[in-house]
């Protein structure tokens, strides 16, 4: 994974993307126990706000380096990577507020736990609910920060409903 993360970092250095952070299942694995996932999800802020050509420039660059696309992913150093342009304000803020971290010796950026949890509530697939439970039960996260994010993005009601449903609170 180290090599793939270096390539992602390179995309920022080459100004093909403005900023990025690891999200999705791999983002979650940085905080909770290992869970089954198949791709490395990278949220990124494009260099310009033009939606067209955002991915094609990046894919061209990666393909020139020998990496092959596979459906909605591109295989980088043996790992299917899903590059996802920020598609709403919550995801954009999650990338902007991401923390620097290291995987082995490689610097990378990681979506904070509280944002990952808010994104899980927003997407709310079965696997998101499962992951959210693990975050709530196993992680010492910043609850004040989490609640503030939920309020800003109109997710507090959904969270309250979730807590009533699964914890009777």
């Amino acid at each position: 994974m180290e090599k793939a993360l270096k390539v992602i970092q390179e995309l920022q250095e080459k100004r093909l993307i403005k900023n990025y952070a690891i999200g999705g299942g791999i983002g979650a694995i940085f905080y909770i126990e290992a869970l089954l996932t198949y791709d490395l999800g990278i949220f990124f802020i494009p260099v310009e706000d033009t939606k067209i050509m955002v991915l094609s420039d990046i894919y061209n660059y990666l393909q020139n380096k020998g990496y092959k696309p596979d459906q909605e992913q591109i295989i980088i150093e043996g790992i299917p990577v899903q590059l996802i342009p920020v598609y709403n304000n919550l995801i954009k803020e999650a990338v902007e507020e991401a923390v620097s971290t290291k995987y082995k010796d490689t610097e990378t950026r990681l979506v904070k736990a509280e944002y990952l949890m808010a994104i899980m509530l927003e997407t709310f697939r079965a696997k998101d609910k499962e992951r959210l439970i693990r975050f709530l039960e196993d992680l010492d996260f910043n609850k004040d920060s989490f609640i503030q994010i939920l309020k800003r993005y109109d997710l507090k009601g959904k969270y309250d409903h979730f807590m009533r449903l699964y914890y009777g609170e």
Partner: protein
Amino acid sequence: MENEKETDPLIESLMETKKKLHEHRAKLPVEEKIKILVQLQELANEIGPSKGKGMVWKIF
């Protein structure tokens, strides 16, 4: 009604042990967790239906 709230001590003990196990696994170094992830991918691909199959990471 009081009895309905009581939990079997054995179940309580099992749940507590499971919680500790989750917490312990959560605190493993991320490099270790990635090794576990690849094992999970291999297992899922061996036993799961083809619909859910994904690519096992070729990183080791």
